[in-house]
């Protein structure tokens, strides 16, 4: 006796975003079903990025510094290493612009961004320093420096989106729209951004995720609701979701603690934490995953290979 597979019919889909330049473009999103429900529609494979910082990071534990030991002070070499180890994209974090750690000016960080873009062929994600007013000043300049590169720039928030989006509009980039774990605030920001005439497929939503053990349930539920919104035809929730898993996972004590033998080997522990966070949020519907440790990325891809494979009933 044959079993009838019940299929959900969705009327909406996730917007498909195109990043980078031909022939090295990367497509993000475009899903037409819940994640990995291949019998119901298309699941776009989640894409991965590795994080590079414009200045040598001071708060990274030794086990995270190790894979990039000799390139940490050189963003260009670091970015090239990321591509070698298999990242689909490079995510450049402009930490040096932070008022409390260098306070680099717009021209300086823009020069770094231009150098990194010139050295790698994969598309670039460029994230500011995380201070909203400062990002509003530097990101438009970075956008200009990267004209024609079709990058993903962020993070635009409710308080600084006007400046960031203006830069994206003028120089042909897409934008990361960040909101604090709230579906309505995410939607509001999307509405405000699209009303500046940025096409809706040029926005990626950053829900401000929490890692495993630190509120991942909230992130999971928000991402899932966004996907359901997209599939049921809500155009202001149909943007692909970007998850900054590296940044969040490596903040926590389980990743940072060095001398806790009963917790097991630190590298293995932290990498598993980062990969596990990413896989979980991929199951919820995340589309772009920004890692810090290359091994987490490899583990994540291995799991995604399995999830993307043939499904047997």
């Amino acid at each position, binding site marked *: 006796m044959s079993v009838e597979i019940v299929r959900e019919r969705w009327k909406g889909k996730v917007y498909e975003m195109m990043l980078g330049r031909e022939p090295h473009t990367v497509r993000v999103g475009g899903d037409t079903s819940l994640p990995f429900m291949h019998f119901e529609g298309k699941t776009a494979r989640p894409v991965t990025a590795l994080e590079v910082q414009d200045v040598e990071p001071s708060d990274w534990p030794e086990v995270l510094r190790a894979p990039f030991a000799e390139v940490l002070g050189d963003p260009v070499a670091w970015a090239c290493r990321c591509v070698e180890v298999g990242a689909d994209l490079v995510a450049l974090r402009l930490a040096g612009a932070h008022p409390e750690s260098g306070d680099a000016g717009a021209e300086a960080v823009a020069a770094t961004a231009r150098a990194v873009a010139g050295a790698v062929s994969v598309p670039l994600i460029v994230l500011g320093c995380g201070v909203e007013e400062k990002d509003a000043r530097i990101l438009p300049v970075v956008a200009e420096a990267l004209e024609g590169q079709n990058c993903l720039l962020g993070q635009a928030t409710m308080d600084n989106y006007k400046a960031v989006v203006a830069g994206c509009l003028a120089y042909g980039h897409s934008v990361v729209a960040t909101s604090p774990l709230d579906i309505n605030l995410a939607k*509001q920001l999307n509405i405000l951004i699209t009303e*500046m005439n940025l096409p809706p497929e040029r926005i990626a939503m950053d829900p401000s995720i929490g890692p495993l053990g630190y509120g991942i349930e909230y992130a999971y539920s928000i991402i899932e609701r966004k996907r359901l919104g997209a599939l049921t035809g809500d155009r202001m929730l149909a943007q692909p979701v970007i998850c900054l898993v590296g940044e969040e996972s490596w903040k926590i004590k389980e990743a940072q603690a060095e001398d806790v033998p009963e917790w097991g080997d630190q590298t293995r522990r932290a990498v598993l934490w980062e990969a596990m966070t990413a896989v979980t949020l991929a199951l919820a519907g995340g589309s772009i995953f920004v890692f810090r440790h290359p091994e987490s990325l490899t583990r994540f891809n291995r799991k995604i290979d399995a999830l993307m494979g043939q499904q047997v009933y």
Partner: protein
Amino acid sequence: MRFLPDNLEIEVGEAETILEVASRAGITLRGACGGDGTCGRCLVVLREGAVRDRGGDIVAEPGAVVRACHSFPVGDPVIEVPETSRLREHQVLAEEEEAGILQAGAETTTGPADPLLRRVRVSLAPPEPGETPDDWGRLQAELARVTGMAVRADVDVLRELPAALREKNWAVTVDLGLDEAGSGAGIVMVQAGHARVPVYGVAVDLGTTTVVVELVDLEKGRTVGALGTYNRQAAYGDDVISRIIYAGERSGGRRQLQEAVVDTVNTLIDDLRRRHRIDREAIRLAVCAGNPTMSHLFLGVDPAFIRLEPYAPAANFWPPCRAGELGLVIHPRAPVHVLPGVASYLGGDVTGGVTASGCGAGGEIVLYVDVGTNGEMVLGDGDWLVGCSCSAGPAFEGSGISCGMRATDGAIEWLGVTPGGFEVICRTIGGERPVGICGSGLIAALAGLVRAGVVDRAGRFAAELETPRLRRTESETEFVLAWARETGHGKDVVLTGADIQNLLRAKAAVYAGIRSMLAAVGLEQDQIVRILIAGGFGRFLPLRDAVAIGMLPDVPLERYAYVGNASLRGARAALLSGRRLAGIGETARKITYLELGDETRFMDEFMSAMFIPHTDLDLFPSVQGEWAQ
């Protein structure tokens, strides 16, 4: 102790806070938190002497700023109450304007057909020698013959009876308070002779934030005057919940709240009586409409269980009582009716308003929305009615907004803003210089500021604007609606960022309530044929702006009618007609109450509505084009 700058001396009671003493002295302080000591609105300045806080610490430095609700006088201190800590316009305000979109019809021109207080003029035959009749028996028989009803009298009526009957040769005027069903009546007053002086009644709207009293000539069915003011209970909390807590947790709290609202009503009655030269005893009937909490507190009934699951009020239908028992300064035997409610958060203000507005009478689907401190809604076609209630906050009544005020003279009731926020054009009630802004003005202001690009759709000021009207103070950003040189009190009239967030919450609660109720009965907003909006916004409601900000459903505007203070009209209708009072009871029985707190839907709807007009733009097709740049 003494209060400055009023220079009022008052005796201090045992364990009384300064807030309580001030209240007795007639100084109403602000107190959003209900005396919890958390809101910091009732701050006063110690000028002389000392006070003690709840922890027992003594404060004795002159100039110290203390919380009135948490400080007790030590000895006889002198306390200055700054203007900012006072409930503004606590004094009686100007005459209420008749909102007058739906007039109460024929009742205003001809005398009422079935009055709740009936005046009968009779002439008895004086007793003959040899007869052994009693005065009351003779009057009772005559009244039964004239009215067809069994008439009751209390002993205190009988005390006055022998003299009254004999004074004008057995001709008397009897005022009868009718039972709701019209089957019997009780004597309120017997006067000698065939009185030609009018008999009056008062219709009272007991709002959480504002109280309005309308004085009506009961024989002519004519309104003599109406006045409104802020409810003095505001000293004990902004909303019904904080007042219920205050009533339950403070010893004597319930009595304080009862006295505060009765005082408020008495102040208004007193002023109306003085303006129209009417004796206290000439007012012989009162009908009050209030939400359930206000009704409980007005009658001195414990409201505690309104707040606790399963939210049971002490009563939905209240028996009439006498004015003297409540402390109302009208004829002490005047019957006081409180309109019946439906459930803990849907009361006689709504059942009265719904009935007086004719909601559901035409068989079409009507939505009735009363926007007060609580937003109450009733939906139905007359065969069925459902109702619900949600907390909207007092913003639209002009409270909880830095320059908010009731809709009276000098209130900005409409305004327009030029692009970029350089110029503001205001229209005020009475055409006077502005002194504040009322509900209708706030709706117009929010829509106008968003259109002008001064406020974005999430309710934030566009900081980059160059207009001098947008300025940063120490604590926040504000927009100047009227400069000090243009206003009636020489101070700027402004709208702050916090005000805008308050407005956004208020409008979101109203819309979320409407959406939740529609969802509960499976109707779409298009299916509503008429929408009646009640509330104290002002003389009119800028409907297009109310839809544009996403407060009211986006349906053709001709389906809307603004009915003003319908709750007061409900009370007045009952005052003039026993049949109308019975009709309000029928409405109350018919309404099925929906408890919005039982499901997550309301909260989801509320969050989606915290944007202008809404995060689901498809719900607002007609305004979508306007907001998209």
